[in-house]
Structure formats: C-alpha cells, structure tokens
C-alpha cells in the first residue's frame, strides 16, 4: 500500500511538474520588440531633406516613425542605432562634412547587422573641402554593403544605355523609364541573394549597372531612378514603388498602427481656420461668414467640426463682450458638435524668426509663443467658450512653419498643435510625392500636419474660381484607393462663406462625405491617435501572435498582404477585424495592452467588422454580444461571425430591432440619430428565439 501511495505521489508530482513546466514554457516564450523607427541620416548643409519630403509618408504608412540625424553634427552611438529597424540615406550630393567619419560609421553599422537603404548618392565621396575619401575606406564600405563600384564608366546618355532587367511594377510606378535612362554607373551587387529590379547596360562598352536592388544588407537605388523631378516645373513622381520597395527592404511584417481607420471605417474630421469670420456674404452684402457657417453647416450637419477663433479679429475691430461677433462665436462654440480651437492672436503669416510677418498690427502686441498661442487660447477659453469645453487646441497660421521655439512652447504647455502640409493628390498633383507625412520635424519637435489642403490653393489664393475646393474630393478619393493612406479632413476658412458658390461646394463635399462609410472625430482626437501612432509598442510572440501596448487613443492596427483572421477566442483586447485592400485591419478596445492571435480559420464567434465610432466594453457570451459605441448623427455597425441567415434582435436605446444576418453571417445596422452630439450608445445582439 505504501508502495502504491509512493507511486501515486510520484505520478502526481510528475504530472504536476509537467503541467507547471508546460505552463511556464507557454508563459516564458520571449517576446521580441518590433523596431518601429527608421534612422534617417541627412546632411544639414544640403538644405533639402528628400526623406522628409517624399519617403516619410510611405514609411509612416508602413508603420514607422522616422527620426532624423544630421551626420555633419553627430554620429549616433551603437546603442542608439540598436533602437532602429534600419538606416536610410538620400543625399542630394556626394559631399559631406566629416565624410570619412560618416563612411566609417555607416560601414560599422552595416557590419553590426543594421539594414541600410541608400537612395541617390552614397554621400561621402568628398569632404566639405573637396578631399576625396580614401579608396580603402570606400572599399570597406562596398565590401560591407556587398556591392562594387567603378567610377571610370560613368555615363549620362539614354542613347547608349539599355535595360537588361526591368521590373516595371517596381521601377515605373508613377513614371515610365522610356527615354529616361539618363544615368549609368558601373555598379554590381555582390550578394548572390540580391533581387535586382533594374539592371542597365552600356551599349558601347557592355558594362552593367545594378541600378535598383534589394539585398541582405538593405537596398540601393541609383541617382534619379527613385524619383522623377522636372527641374523646371518642380513636378515630382515616384519611379520606384516606394510602398513595395520600402516594405521589402525593412521588416514590415507586423501589425502597423493605422491612423486612417476606426473600426473599419475611414476616419473623418473637419476643421476651420478662423480667418474671415466677419467677411460678409457677396450675395446679400450683410450676413457675416460666421453666421452663414453656423446656419448652413454647424447646425445642419451632425458632424464634428473643430472651429478656431482668430483673436486679432476681435481685438483690432474693438469688438466688445456682448457684441455681435462675440455672440456669433459663443453660439458656435456652444454647439455640441463644435470643438473650439485657437487660430492665434496676431496671426503670423511667416513664423520664421528672421522673416516673421503678422496679419494684424495690434498696438502693444509683441510676438512670443506665449502671446500668440498661450494668450489666444486663454482669451478664447475665458471669453468665448463654455466652461465645460475649455480648449488646448491650436491651428498654425500663415505659412504654417512654426520654429522650434513655438513648438517647444506648445509641447511644454500640453497644447495640441495642428495644420500645415498642404497634401494634394489630384489631377494637378497626381503623385504620392504630394502626400505629406504625419509630421514636420523641427529640432526634435513635431508639428502635426493637417491631413490635406484647405480651399486656398484650389481657389488661386482665394481669388477664384470659388468652386475650386470641389476638387478636394479627388484627393479624398485618391488617398482612399488603391491605398487608404489618409483620413478625410474637410478643411476651410470662415471666409469660404463669402460666395454662394463656395458655400454650395462645401455643402457638396459634406454631402459626399456622408455618402461614404466614415467614422467622425474631432481634430483633438485625431491628434491623440497620432500620439498613439508614435508611442505604440509592438512585440512579436510568434509568427502569428503579437502584443500591443502603449497605443493610447489609437485602436486600429493593420497587417498588410494578409488573408489571416484574428482568433477571437484567444486574442485579448480585440473587438473585431476586417479585410480591406489586401490588408487585415484589427480593432482594439484599449490603449494599454492587447494580444493578437492570427489564424487561418474563419471565425464563428461574433466580432465587429465595422462601426462608425469608438467601441468599449465589448462583451460576448453564448446568449448575447454587447458593446458601447461612441457615435454622432448616425449609428452604423456590422457584426460578423454570426450564423448565416440567422435571425437576431438588436437592442439599441431601449428599442428592439429584428434583423437577419446575410449568407456570410454578417449583420448590418444603420440608424440615423436625432442629436448632433457624440453619444455612447449601448448595443446588444442576441439570437432571436
């Protein structure tokens, strides 16, 4: 008996340790931090930053933050470099202060295993004093980068150059190469595993040039084969497909934070610069623009609109509290769908210190960030805005190029900044090169760019045609398809109300946006999502499992080229997903910690496929699925994973609605709401008995 007990105890012990060990093994799988930052090395003396102008937009789309370092001033330590997914350079010339130091530093980073993407010049052929970098230093770089280069065979003649290998999907994205093989260098990639997208040959000597390639060390694009630039008209087009090229160079196989989408629907916002609120209508010559905007848009559309006041307007015209303009502002800001903001005090046209110029010459006013930004917000909060809607939102004015001092001020005072960028993507600007990145970088501070252009560039600086802003819809469409790269921002000035035509166009645009599947937010909420984009941390547990933390207000993540589903039973913090444009969009219900498990299995438990607002308290049980949805004007959602053609009861705001799922098990619900304020609405779904 004693023996039996001992055996049994042993068995129990073994089982227990086995179970514990398995559990421990499961728990201790090391998560690998996904590097989401690209180190962009620039030459501050070139006066132009092609990475910021062209590449950052694409890198942002691929989930990367971009950090710039001027290598003429400092070379980051190895520890610092370890925090980056890779290094990118796009030097305009081949001359660099400290060329040798840079060459040795970049060679070292390559030997340490960092990926490098070189576009155009290597940058270090000459020092600032035109001294050639020694051959042995160049050779070490070429060896580390696995390429060879012979400078004696340079040629600039399309007549003597032909293609040997050309993958037009990669090399002729927005501009064909026909007639434009204008540069040849004798370059060979020595990495046998390299993928060459463009290989050229000199017809006269037979030499070859690996002009565009991706290899184990990163990637390379010779000269102007990345970007077409018409030097006369300054028009630009991508030659390479930057989305594909950058994706293949850097490791992008991870859930990318996505600022374009909320629960599957395209993020929408609208904002107004405060200029021209006093301008009268050209048709009746008396109604001011503020009142027209109030009547025709703010009251009429159940959409959130972030409206800024320009304090100088009130000051220079000696408006008094209780006067008509104060009243106009107060009634606007009292509306539930209006978010107040400041458009400054004296409205700098030019922010750069040496050239600073103001719209208003206000007696006693001296420019400082505190006077322009802080004081204007204080004025608006104290005199125009209801107590419960105090604002910290500032829209940059004029050229929208604030200096570091102004940006430092807004960050130190926790003021949300917005505007600038002037993204357009239409017939006139038919290229992704005109889609600006999320931010402008100024000495380490970040200016949050507006999503697209306001009416000014469409209307010849507001000289007509006053219907010009209608073409903004082209930009909205092209930034949605084939790649959803930007949200929609209907952005204009108060003076847009001066003309019946411009009012009509604006109405058409709002109506068009309402015909789309949009998830409306205020600008401040979008900025919070940008912050989430910057800070979000992604850890890889396995090929199909990730942990997301610190994503803050940003709740959408995207995995490109994926037909996987989210395993809704295993995942935590995930409320749903959808497939769109070849990508898997995943929605989280929190900004702290979520775990995503991917699967190839079709999901047969209810999950959110689309909703036009933020979701919280997602709960599902066998009997019922429930959640809260924050919406304005319209309640719209789609639940998938239901029984095909099943009957369901949707309980919303105390009313039960009987609906059927479709043959794919998807249930769609749309209901127009009466209020024009954001509401949290509880939704319950259960099978009809």
């Amino acid at each position, binding site marked *: 008996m004693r023996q039996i007990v001992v055996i049994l105890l042993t068995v129990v012990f073994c089982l227990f340790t086995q179970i514990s060990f398995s559990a421990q093994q499961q728990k201790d799988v090391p998560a690998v931090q996904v590097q989401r930052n690209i180190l962009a090395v620039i030459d501050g003396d070139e006066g132009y930053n092609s990475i910021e102008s062209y590449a950052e937009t694409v890198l942002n789309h691929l989930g990367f933050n971009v950090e710039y370092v001027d290598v003429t001033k400092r070379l980051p330590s190895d520890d610092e470099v370890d925090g980056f997914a890779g290094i990118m350079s796009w030097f305009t010339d081949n001359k660099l202060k400290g060329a040798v130091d840079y060459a040795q530093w970049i060679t070292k980073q390559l030997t340490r295993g960092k990926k490098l993407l070189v576009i155009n010049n290597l940058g270090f052929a000459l020092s600032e004093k035109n001294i050639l970098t020694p051959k042995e230093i160049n050779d070490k770089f070429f060896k580390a980068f696995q390429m060879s280069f012979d400078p004696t065979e340079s*040629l600039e*003649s*399309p*007549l*003597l150059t032909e293609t040997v290998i050309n993958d037009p999907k990669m090399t002729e994205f927005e501009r*064909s190469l*026909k*007639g*434009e093989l*204008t540069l040849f260098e004798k370059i060979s990639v020595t990495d046998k595993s390299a993928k060459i997208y463009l290989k050229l040959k000199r*017809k*006269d000597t037979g030499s070859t040039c690996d002009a565009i390639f991706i290899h184990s060390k990163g990637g390379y694009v010779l000269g102007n084969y990345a970007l077409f630039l*018409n030097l*006369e*008209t300054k*028009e630009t087009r991508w030659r390479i497909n930057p989305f594909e090229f950058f994706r293949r160079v850097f490791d992008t196989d991870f859930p990318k934070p996505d600022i374009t989408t909320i629960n599957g629907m395209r993020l929408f916002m609208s904002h107004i610069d405060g200029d021209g609120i006093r301008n009268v209508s050209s048709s009746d010559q008396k109604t001011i623009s503020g009142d027209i905007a109030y009547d025709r848009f703010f009251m009429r559309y159940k959409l959130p609109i972030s409206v800024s006041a320009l304090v100088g307007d009130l000051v220079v015209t000696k408006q008094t509290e209780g006067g008509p303009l104060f009243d106009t502002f107060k009634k606007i800001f009292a509306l539930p769908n209006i978010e107040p903001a400041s458009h400054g005090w004296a409205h700098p046209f030019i922010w750069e210190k040496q050239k600073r110029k103001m719209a208003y010459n206000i007696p006693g006013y001296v420019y400082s960030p505190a006077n322009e930004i802080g004081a204007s917000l204080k004025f608006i909060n104290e005199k125009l805005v209801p107590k419960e809607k105090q604002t910290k939102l500032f829209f940059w004015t004029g050229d929208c190029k604030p200096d570091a001092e102004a940006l430092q001020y807004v960050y130190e005072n926790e003021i949300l900044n917005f505007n600038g960028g002037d993204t357009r993507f*239409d*017939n*006139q600007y038919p290229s992704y090169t005109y889609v600006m990145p999320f931010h402008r970088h100024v000495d380490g501070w970040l200016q949050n760019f507006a999503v697209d252009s306001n009416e000014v560039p469409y209307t*010849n600086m507001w000289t*007509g*045609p*006053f*219907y*010009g802003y*209608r*073409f903004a819809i*082209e930009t909205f469409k092209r930034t949605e398809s084939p790649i959803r790269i930007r949200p929609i921002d209907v952005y204009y000035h108060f003076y847009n109300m001066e003309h019946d*035509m411009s009012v*009509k*166009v604006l109405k058409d645009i709002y109506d068009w946006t309402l015909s789309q599947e949009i998830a409306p937010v205020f600008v401040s909420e979008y900025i919070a999502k940008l912050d989430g984009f910057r800070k979000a941390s992604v850890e890889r547990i396995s090929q199909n499992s990730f942990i997301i933390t610190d994503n803050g207000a940003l709740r959408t993540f995207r995995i490109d080229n994926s037909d996987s589903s989210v395993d809704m039973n295993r995942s935590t913090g995930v409320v749903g997903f959808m497939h769109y444009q070849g990508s898997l969009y995943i929605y989280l219900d929190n900004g702290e910690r979520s775990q995503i498990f991917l699967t190839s299995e079709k999901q047969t438990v209810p999950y959110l496929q689309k909703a036009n607002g933020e979701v919280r308290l997602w709960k599902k049980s066998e009997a019922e699925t429930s959640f809260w949805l924050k919406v304005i004007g319209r309640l719209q959602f789609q639940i998938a994973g239901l029984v095909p053609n099943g009957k369901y009861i949707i309980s919303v705001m105390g009313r039960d609605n009987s609906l059927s799922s479709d043959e794919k098990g998807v249930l769609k619900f749309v209901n127009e709401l009466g209020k024009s304020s954001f509401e949290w609405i509880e939704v319950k779904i259960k099978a009809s008995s």
Partner: protein
Amino acid sequence: MNIKWYSIIVFMLIILGIAVALHPTRLRTGKLLIESGRVKEAIGTLMNIYRDDPDNYRAIQALAPALEQVGDIDMLKGLYNKLVDLKPKDDSFRELIRFSQWNNDPEGVRRGYDKWFEFRRKNGNRFDDDDGRDIIENLYFLCIQSKDYAKAVELADYKKKLDPSISQIIDNDKIELYEKAGDLKGVIDHLEQMLKNDGSNEYALDKYLQLAPAANKQSEARSYLAGMVKKNPRDSKLRLKLIDFDTRAMDYDSAKSEYLDWIAVSQNDIPVIEGYLEWLLSVEKQDLAIEYIEKLNPQLRTQNMKNTLVQLYEWNGMRDKLVGPYLERWRSNPSNSRETKDLVWMLIDLNRFDDVETVLKKMHGLYPNDVDYAQMLSNLYQQRKKIDESISTLEPAAKKKEDPKLLKQLGELYLLRATQ
C-alpha cells in the same frame, strides 16, 4: 395744321426704327442680366440662344463666364473648346487654358496650348509677344513632362529665336531631348551643326565623340578631333580627348603616335611623358613603357619614372636589369634589411658573387651583431673557399649567441680548415 399722310408714315417708321434699335436683343438681355447680378436668369436667356444656334460664338462667349459663376464646369469644358474652334483668337485660347488650369485639368491645359500654338503657326503669327512667349515656354515644359520630346525639340528652336542669348543652353538641352527621344541621327546632326557653329563647345564635343561610334561616324569624329588638335597642338584637353577616343576604339597605334607627337610638341614636358607612361601601362604595353624609359634622356627621368621602371622590371622578371637599380637603392639606403636581403639573393641567383661579397661585407661592417649577415657572409666565403675569412666572420657571432646550430657550423669550418 396740315399734316401730310406720308409725314405720319415717315414719323411712325422713325419711331419704329428707334424702338427696334433700342429693344435689347436676347444676347444683350443676357449680358445685362449678368451685369446686374441676375446670373441664373442670364443663363436661362443665353442657353436659349445657344440651343437655337449652337455655333453662335457671341452667345457662348457670354454664357461661359455666367456658367463659371455658378460652377457648371461639365458644360463649360465643351463650351470653351468650342469657342476656340468657332472663334480662334488669343482671348479664346487664353480662356480655355485658364479654365483648364483652374479646373484641375492638366490635359486640357496641354490641349489648349497645342491648339493655340498650331493656330498661331498656321497663321504665320509671331511668338515674340507676351502670349507667344507664354505659349512656347509652357508648351515646352508640358512636352517634356509628357515625354513628347520631338515636339519639345521643335519648340526649343522657337525658344532660341525668342531669346538668342540663351542659344547655347537651348542647344545643349536639345542634345538631351534628342537622346531622350532615342533619335541618334537627330542628335548627331545637331551636334555636328553645333560644332560647326562653335568648336569650343566642350559639352557638344564630348557628346559627339561619345555618340559618333554608335552612329557609324567613328572616322568622321576622329577626323574632326584630329583637325582640332592640329589647329591647337598645345591644347592638352583636346590631345587627351583624341587619345581617349583612339583608346576606346582600341586603336593604340594612333593613340601612341598622338602621345609621341604631343611629347615632341611640348618639348618633353614631364607631365606629358608621365601621362604617356600611365597610358602605356593602362593599355598593358609594359614592354613599350620599359623601352621608352630606358631610352629616355636620364636628365628627364624623374624618381617616379625610375620607380616605375623598377616595378616594371620586377613585374616582368627582368632580374638582370634590376641589379643596377637595386644596388643603387641599397647604396642610398642600406638600412632596409628586407630590400638588402632580396638584393643579395638576386645577386646569388645571377652568380654575381663579387657583388654579393661587396654588399655583405659592407652590411657586416655596418651591423657586426647581425647574425644573419654574418652567417650569409661566412657561407659566401666558404663557398668561395676562403675558409679563414669564413671562420673569422662567423666566430664572434656564434660565440656570442651560443646558438647550437651556429656553433655546429663553426665546428664544421674548423674541421674543414684542419683537413685542407
């Protein structure tokens, strides 16, 4: 009052005439309505005229701005295009282009400029007014943007006529345009013309030399360049271009002749001679380089050339020729033991034992504690049957070092002396 009946008729006719004259036509009504801000009514009136007579350009002229005010741009596109067909004049074209620009229609802009350009050209109009310059300038850039290089070349000629001060820039641009168009004959003809006009255009000359072989004009290009060299025999750039041209054509004999001629003309200019030697080496004519340096007046031989010659002897295994330079090098710097030992071994191989002895004696004298030199000299003496010298050379080193091998060797020398 006696009023004649015909007076009444005349009076009535006058009144009727005035009424007819004063009564606004529908067109005039439309225009008046626009002026008074009643745009929608104006559009209604003008549309009626347009429907009745779709080719009434006056109606279109009035209707278009009215439609623009209300933003009916879909209809406007057709109207502005029709207007330039019905009434081709500068105003009509200008309006079409302005409208296309404002309406995000770059293709419309291009079409407008194309039509305007053709209209002016067909009518023999000049382009030296503001509109003309605008047409040429904008159409030129639009053609480049849309890769219509053939037309861009044509427009470049207009640009040149409009501003002769930028002729050379335009001509250079045309080279690029022809190249982009893939027009080899065009670019060669153009380059020949450019060089005929201005032989000093280096960019054109370089391009011509680069492209001529591809156009089977190798000999013409060479003749041209040779002619230039003949005219400017001291122009080193031209000389180099010709040599480079011959070299690329692998005509090394011609290139060599050119170099020798250049050396003669330059009166043995050292950099030219050095350039010649570099060239000989680059085309792997090492034998000619050796011969040339050997025959060169020693006064003209720079240290660089001497070093080159030694290197060439080494590369070509010409050990007998290396003796002199190596000995000279050793004499000027005997402290380099590696070079000295190389020299010794080479002299031994060549059986020049007197020279070996001279070198080793001097080295042993300079470095009496150097065992290697002592041993080498001792061995040499032994080989030359100078046993006493051999022993006296090795003895101090062997005793001091107490190296068993050296001591053994010394012992063997003692035995050898004893048996002699």
